[in-house]
């Protein structure tokens, strides 16, 4: 704790500025809304982020062609992606799948990801908070077989990292997608800027990549995901807050700006407090992860319990205080609400985070 640094360094701020600039150029509400009618492929936006700014390689060590940065830098990218509800597989591919591959030791695939040429997805339901007790995919000599529902960003991934039940327990495999015996079926998603898909394997050829601790690798991947999801959530929350503040300043009703009504003022004051404090929680999670501080488990659970609900609150206030316009397809508020609510369910609900936290801090349910 005494070593914690909850502020942002100059390098981090520079990274933020670059990412923000690129996103401002390439992301617009119209582009985002279009994803709801026609799921987008891997966009030019992602190529810009991955190749020009190297965000796909952030968490990959330099010796494997990566940047060798930590969760502190990745958190800044996640914040900016949240602010823009950018439809890019940073969290799913460059954080979760990447950490799984790192932990398993699959250097070959990492090199491909680092170059930004391909993306990967962990073939696990996006609601999962922890490695499966029994995986729904079986690994046999004849290949992988089984079904995984609601996998985020699987539709655009060319590598699937698959937790599968082998003879001696959980194994981790990679599968090339699309490929023989592998079917990825996109489904309508609450948040189409991070679409989910169902994945089915029927004797799919695969490569086993773990060296005995598949469970640990998946757990580490999900933890990194939870840590950085919190930063994405404060990005969503901050942008919703700013949009709302701007709107209530310029929207006039009854001859006054609606931001001059005290009930609105007090709600925004409370929201400002909430969003600001969520920032401390997310930053602490990223910082402990970066420093390999053992408190990261507590920090991640705290951030996951708090930040997702704050983001939902901010997005809900954004819709409400925009009034009718906030309910329309043409205003971006709905894009943020859908991202916020989906993010709250991702990698375990806040309830699950608090249950996990209780065990960590010695406050058992009964």
């Amino acid at each position, binding site marked *: 704790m005494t070593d914690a640094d909850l502020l942002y360094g100059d390098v981090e701020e520079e990274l933020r500025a670059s990412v923000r600039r690129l996103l401002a150029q390439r992301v617009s509400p119209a582009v985002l809304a279009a994803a709801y009618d026609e799921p987008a492929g891997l966009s030019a936006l992602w190529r810009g982020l991955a190749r020009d700014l190297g965000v796909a390689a952030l968490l990959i060590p330099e010796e494997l062609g990566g940047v060798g940065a930590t969760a502190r830098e990745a958190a800044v990218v996640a914040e900016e992606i949240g602010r823009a509800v950018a439809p890019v597989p940073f969290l799913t591919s460059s954080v979760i799948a990447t950490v799984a591959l790192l932990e398993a030791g699959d250097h070959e695939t990492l090199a491909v990801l680092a170059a930004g040429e391909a993306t990967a997805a962990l073939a696990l339901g996006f609601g999962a908070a922890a490695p499966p007790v029994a995986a729904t995919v079986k690994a046999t000599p004849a290949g992988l077989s089984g079904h995984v529902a609601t996998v985020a960003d699987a539709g655009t991934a060319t590598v699937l990292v698959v937790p599968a039940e082998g003879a001696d327990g959980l194994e981790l495999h990679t599968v090339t997608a699309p490929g023989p015996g592998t079917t990825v079926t996109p489904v309508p998603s609450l948040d189409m800027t991070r679409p989910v898909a169902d994945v089915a394997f029927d004797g799919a050829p695969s490569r086993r990549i773990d060296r005995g601790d598949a469970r640990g690798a998946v757990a580490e991947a999900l933890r990194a995901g939870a840590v950085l999801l919190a930063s994405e959530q404060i990005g969503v929350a901050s942008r919703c807050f700013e949009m709302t503040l701007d709107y209530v300043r310029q929207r006039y009703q009854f001859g*006054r700006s609606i931001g001059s009504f005290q009930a609105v003022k007090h709600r925004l004051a409370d929201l400002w407090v909430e969003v600001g404090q969520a920032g401390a929680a997310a930053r602490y999670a990223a910082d402990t992860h970066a420093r390999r501080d053992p408190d990261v488990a507590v920090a991640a659970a705290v951030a996951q319990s708090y930040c997702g609900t704050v983001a939902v609150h901010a997005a809900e206030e954004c819709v409400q205080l925009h009034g009718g316009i906030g309910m329309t397809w043409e205003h971006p508020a709905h894009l943020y609400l859908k991202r916020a609510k989906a993010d709250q369910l991702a990698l375990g609900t806040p309830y699950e985070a608090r249950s996990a936290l209780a065990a960590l801090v010695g406050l058992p349910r009964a």
Partner: protein
Amino acid sequence: MTDDEAISADLALRVERLLDDVDLARIGREDFLGARFDAGLAWVHFPPGCGGLGLPVEFQELVDSRLRAAGAPEHLPGRNGIGRGMAAPTIAAFGTEEQKTRLLRPLWTGEHEYCQLFSEPGAGSDLAAVAARAVRDGDTWVVNGQKVWTSSAHTARRAILVARTDADVPKHRGLTYFICDMTDPGVDVRPLRQITGEAEFNEVFLTDVRIPDADRLGEVGEGWRVATLTLNNERVAIGGGVPREQGMIGKAAQAWRERPELRDPAMHDELMRHWVEAEVARLSAVRMRQRLAAGQPGPEGSAMKLTFARLAQAISGFELELLGADGLRYDDWTARRPESVDYTGRGAGYRYLRAKGNSIEGGTSEILRNVIAERVLGLPAEHRTDKDIPWKDVPR
């Protein structure tokens, strides 16, 4: 025999006569409704000649139930609600004899479906901040402007419309109320897609729409007073019908009961809090109806709408958390054009998103709290400067 009994007996006779006069097996819906109108049995509390008999409104139920029992054609469910619920009472109250005679019968039979052209993008909760202009040109008015949140605009033949006819007086005093023909070539209806993916509503662009002065309802400049009557007839859906576990809580309880694998013990107390609040809201609605029946109408309508919106939003959000990963899926993003809204239909994601409108449409929760604070609790009104200065000078 009391007066009431005499009226009831007479009404029963009139219903019988109507049923004798028509051949239910063959008559079309519109023709039957026309005959019913001519018999004064459309709205018994309307004046004779306007589809009524000038009786107290309580007698309507007797007519309705007898006709229902006889299997007589009814209005298509959900059709022309604005015409029958809002336009008709306004025409009856403010129309000239000529207008009543001309407008009410096709409204009643469904020949003229109505929509409402009140809301504007720039007005929002400030309903009197109408900017659409109507300028007189001899015996007609020329209307230009933009309206929004208009359901049924794409199917309606007529609209009730409020437009500004004088920008030099304070905003409540420069409005006039019209009946607008939606088939006028200057009327452009465009679907307004919303957060759920659907387009329940429309935007309506009015470009040099011509309205005969004969279709003005009330005096020039009296539009706010006329519209107020219309809006007072707008009925909000009241949460919690009589049966327990209706609405959103029924969906969440059903998921909990039918899918034991979703039962996170950490969520149980929250589920029960929602259940309790929904039940308390239901009991409050029951009490409101009992008070009305006992002749003690109260101001609980606003309270019920506030509560309904709050619970619908909280419980639908909770339901998604309960569903967990399944909550990440949506049923259908197609830009559908539904005939009516079903708040608890479709999937959990739809319910969650659609419920966001509950605290905006028909009076935002913020406006309702003001109404309660000022009209029920007698607290001072908000400071405003827009009431006494010319519309054109109001900051906006």
